[in-house]
C-alpha cells in the first residue's frame, strides 16, 4: 500500500498482549498455521467486520489468543483455469475477478467500504448470527463445487465445500485458500431488503461445471444447502419451472428476524426457477 512502511520483522511473529487477549500477527501462512495449532482457544481475526462489533458490544471471547491474519500473505487470487483464492481475499477482489456466480454474490453484500474489508475466509466461516444466517457466499461456493484448503489438528488438507460446510464448527480449522473452477455458465439471484447492510433473505446460485449443474440456496437455514432434487430434475431434462418446484425437497426454511419460514417457503421455488432461467439465458 502507498505510504506503508515495512513494520513487521520478517520471520518473526509479532506478539502484543492486550488487556484480555493475546494478539498474534503472523507474517506468513506458515507462521499462521503454526500459531493456530489445533485451534483450541484461538479466535481467528480476518477482515474484522463481524468481530469488531463483538468487541464494541462486549461480546468478544475473553482470554485466549487472537490470530490476526492481516499480514499473513493470504490475500492473493491466482490461476487461470483453477482459481486459487486466498482466505484473506477481500469481497471487492471477488467482485473484480468477474468469476460468476461468486462475483455477483460478493458484489451483493453490504457496501463499498465493507466489501473492501470483509474476506472470503471470514464469510465462509461466519457462524449463523443470533438474528439471521450469515455467510452470503456459501451458496455460490457450493454451486461452484469449491474446494477448501485448511489447517488444524492433524494436518493441512483439502475438503469439498459440501464437507466443509456440513462439518463447520466440529473441529477448529484455519482456512488458507479456496479453489474453484471457472464455471461454463452461472447465475445468481438474491432476495433482500432494501438496506445495504441487511443479510440476504435468501440467495440462489447455480453453476455448470463439468457435465452437471449444481444449485444451492443460502439464507433458508443456518447454513447454505445444495438443492440436489433440483439438480436431479435438471439432469433428467426438466424445465426451470418443474425443477424449481423441487426447491423445498432439500431444505426446511426457518423463521428469523429477516423473514418468516412461510415467506421463504413461498418464495424459494420462484427464486430457484428464475435463477435457472437466468442460467439458460431465458
Amino acid at each position, binding site marked *: 500500500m502507498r505510504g506503508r512502511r515495512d*513494520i513487521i520483522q520478517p520471520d518473526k511473529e509479532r506478539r*502484543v498482549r492486550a488487556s484480555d487477549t493475546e494478539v498474534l500477527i503472523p507474517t506468513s501462512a506458515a507462521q499462521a498455521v503454526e500459531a493456530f495449532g489445533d485451534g483450541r482457544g484461538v479466535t481467528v481475526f480476518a477482515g*474484522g467486520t463481524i468481530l469488531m*462489533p463483538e468487541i464494541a458490544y462486549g461480546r468478544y471471547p475473553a482470554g485466549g489468543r*487472537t490470530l*490476526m491474519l492481516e499480514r499473513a500473505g493470504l490475500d492473493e487470487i491466482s490461476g487461470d483455469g483453477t482459481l486459487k483464492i486466498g482466505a484473506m481475499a477481500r469481497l471487492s477482489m471477488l467482485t473484480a475477478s468477474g468469476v460468476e456466480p461468486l462475483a455477483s454474490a460478493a458484489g451483493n453484500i453490504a*457496501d463499498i467500504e465493507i466489501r473492501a*474489508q470483509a474476506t472470503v475466509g471470514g464469510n465462509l466461516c461466519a457462524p449463523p448470527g443470533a438474528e439471521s444466517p450469515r455467510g452470503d457466499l456459501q451458496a455460490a461456493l457450493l454451486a461452484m463445487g469449491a474446494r477448501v484448503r485448511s489447517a488444524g489438528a492433524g494436518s493441512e488438507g483439502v475438503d469439498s465445500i459440501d464437507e466443509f460446510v456440513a462439518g463447520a464448527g466440529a473441529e477448529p480449522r484455519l482456512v488458507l485458500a479456496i479453489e474453484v473452477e471457472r464455471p461454463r455458465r452461472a447465475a445468481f439471484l438474491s432476495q433482500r431488503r432494501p438496506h445495504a447492510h441487511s443479510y440476504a433473505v435468501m440467495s440462489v446460485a447455480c453453476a455448470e461445471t463439468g457435465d452437471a449443474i449444481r444449485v444451492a440456496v443460502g439464507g433458508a437455514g443456518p447454513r447454505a444447502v445444495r438443492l440436489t432434487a433440483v439438480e436431479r430434475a435438471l439432469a433428467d431434462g426438466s424445465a426451470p419451472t418443474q425443477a424449481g418446484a423441487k426447491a423445498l425437497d432439500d431444505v426446511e426454511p426457518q423463521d428469523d428476524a429477516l423473514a418468516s419460514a412461510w415467506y421463504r417457503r413461498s418464495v424459494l421455488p420462484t427464486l430457484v426457477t428464475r435463477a435457472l432461467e437466468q442460467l439458460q439465458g431465458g
Partner: protein
Amino acid sequence: MELNVNGVTHAIASPPLTSLLGVLREELNVLSPKAGCLQGACGTCTVLVDGEARRSCLMPVAAVEGAEITTVEGLGTAPDGLAPLQEAFHSGYAAQCGFCTPGMLMAAHALIQRAGGPVDREQVIDALSGHICRCTGYVKIVDAVIAASGGETVVAQAPREPEGAVA
C-alpha cells in the same frame, strides 16, 4: 505502534484490537469521525486508509499500523480552508444535524478521487449506499457530491417562501 493521521505521525499506546475510531477520538482527539452504530452499518465513522474509504469502527488499529489516515480535518477546515467538496456541502445545504456528514464527505471524496472527473447520480448513490442520513433525505447530499465533482445536477434548488407567509 505508529499511525500517520492527516500528515502527522503519532505514537499509539492503545491495545492492538482498539478500533481505529477509538484511537482517533479517544487517544488523538481527532473528533470528526463519529461513533454511531459501532457495527459498520451507519457510515459516519468512515475515514480514508491509504486513500481508500474504510469504516474506522471496524478496523483494529493493529491492522492499519503504518498506514496514512485522512479524516475531515485533513480535507480542509472552516472558515477559509474548506475543500471544494466541503464548500459544495455548505452551499448546497447538504448537512442538517451534521452527524452523518463526516462519513458522507470521506466516502464522496474517495469516489471523486477514484473517478478522476465528474460523477453521475448512480455512482454517488452506489458510493454512499452504506451511509445513513436521518435528516436531509439524501437529495442535497447527492447533488453536492455531483457538483463538487464537476458534474451537472438535475434540479437547481431555489429557496422557497414558506406557504402562508405574509409579506
